[in-house]
């Protein structure tokens, strides 16, 4: 059995009249990645700020590494790292100086500090830029440095608040690789994101936060099962072929203008083979075939009640 690194029960926080967190429950097992998924203003950052001792909760309990965030912030701080939405780097220093600053504040000792800094510069591909002022760094480099600074003391729990927001696709993938590497080393990661693909790529579990509450919590696959299954979309050359195919297959939906047919499926290869087999037997040519499996977009929109423009358009 795994121990939980983060335990949150009934967490509440309001700013004036505005209720930001309205009873959040969340458990993160040690050594796993949990994504906190939600639209802007859902309370993701507030949750992370409470767990990293920056903000006091109004109600509920939160434990990180077994330490109460309200009563033992020192204990929590000793084992966590936070990389926030806005880069928490010293813009007047060089990358190397930033890392050395962290190493000193973590009391690594001169030799270990030097070794660790060199290691991180190498690992995060910042060797060349190490002695340059931060003003010359790109967004991706700043974010990498930010995360490297968080990792100087190898914390056991890391909070990543929207780690890839505003990054280009290449930097995003680099960031993802880094997160996977951390998890491989046994670090517990709680990451917030508004990107569904990011949660799908990285997370063992996903908690969907909306309006200050967790509206769904489970593995990516479990969440995908919450929405209607996938389908195969077949396009034909003319109306005659479309007619013939729709008589041949069960439970289809017709799209006259697109000359297309939508067949529900469980997404398995067997179902696909059956459909194609029947069409082959009737000598029907298919112009185009596409398979749609439910993704987290569908889940997200179904759960948070937003209109899914992509689906209604088809």
């Amino acid at each position, binding site marked *: 059995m795994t121990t939980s690194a983060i335990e949150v029960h009934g967490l509440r926080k309001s700013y004036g009249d505005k209720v930001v967190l309205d009873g959040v429950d969340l458990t993160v097992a040690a050594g796993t990645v949990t994504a906190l998924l939600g639209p802007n203003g859902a309370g993701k950052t507030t949750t992370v700020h409470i767990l990293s001792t920056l903000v006091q909760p109004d109600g509920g309990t939160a434990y990180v590494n077994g330490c109460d965030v309200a009563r033992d912030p020192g204990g929590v701080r000793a084992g966590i790292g936070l990389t926030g939405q806005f880069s928490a780097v010293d813009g007047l220093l060089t990358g190397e100086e930033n890392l050395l600053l962290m190493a000193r504040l*973590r009391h690594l000792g001169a030799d270990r500090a030097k070794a660790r800094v060199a290691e991180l510069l190498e690992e995060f591909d910042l060797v060349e830029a190490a002695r340059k002022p931060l003003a010359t760094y790109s967004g991706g480099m700043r974010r990498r440095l930010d995360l490297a600074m968080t990792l100087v003391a190898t914390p056991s729990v890391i909070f990543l608040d929207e780690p890839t927001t505003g990054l280009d696709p290449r930097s995003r993938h680099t960031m993802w690789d880094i997160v996977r590497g951390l998890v491989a080393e046994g670090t517990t990661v709680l990451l917030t994101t508004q990107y569904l693909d990011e949660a799908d790529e990285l997370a063992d579990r996903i908690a969907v936060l909306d309006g200050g509450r967790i509206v769904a919590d489970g593995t990516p696959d479990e969440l995908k099962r919450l929405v209607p299954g996938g389908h195969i979309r077949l396009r034909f050359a003319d109306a005659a072929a479309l007619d013939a195919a729709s008589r041949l297959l069960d439970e289809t939906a017709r799209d006259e203008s697109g000359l297309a047919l939508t067949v529900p499926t469980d997404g398995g290869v067997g179902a696909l083979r059956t459909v194609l087999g029947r069409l082959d037997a009737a000598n029907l040519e298919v112009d185009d075939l596409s398979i749609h499996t439910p993704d987290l977009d569908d889940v997200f929109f179904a759960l948070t009640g937003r209109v899914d423009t992509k689906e209604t358009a088809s």
Partner: protein
Amino acid sequence: MTTITTTRPTTSDTRRQSHVVADAVTMLRRNLLHIVRYPGLTVFVIGAPVVFLLLFVYVFGGTLGAGLPGVDLAGGRAAYVAYVMPGILAMTIAGTAGGAATTVAMDMTEGITARFRTMAISRAAVLAGHVLGNTIQALIGVVVVLGVGLLVGFRPSAGPTDWLAALGMIVLIAFAISWLAVAMGMQAKSVENASNLPTPLLLLPFLGSGFVPTDSMPGWMQWFADYQPFTPFIETIRGLLLGTPLDWNPALAIGWCVVIAVAGYAWSMAIYERKSVR
């Protein structure tokens, strides 16, 4: 993967306490590095009192000096250099407050302060780094301004012990003003606001015995001038460097320093917790 499930508040607290000094030194190094890397603010902060010194000696000095008790018309400027120097030194220290407040306010918006708070670093260490950095900057300023003063004819009569005492007094004033400046920088809603908040401090040497004797002022202003902190600051430095009567001024000056430093410390510590999140 090992997980720490035991709560150990006492050990982590004592561990933190023992690191306060080391952390304060680390933060001080960071602030000194900022000064070396970006000297613009420092140059401005030190340059202003030098300009004021030259202005008051060469433009106003002749007339103002002649108005001092027991000085004849011909010796006005030379007498005024001696008279104005302690006031300019106090102004130099007060002037660093604007720089310190700006630096602190910039830090608060940078997000790195939030990072410091999620680490096991004591609040006092982060703030002390700023205070010590600014105290050092103020000392550099005082040395530069004194140097210019000597060039334009300032001739102090102080012996080695007087110099040492004056230095101690200056360090103490700079330390106290720095705590106040750090608090102002934390209080400020923006960086622009932060650079303005300490401006009244720059006026205080004028509203005291810095530039003219207080007994030449109207009664109500004289009352304010005699009881505000900068008058004992200036009178103590003047007494130590030039041998004017000290009276109660050193005790008053030290008392004010303690009050200002404690108030600035308490003020900034209180804001630190609630303001460093964006």
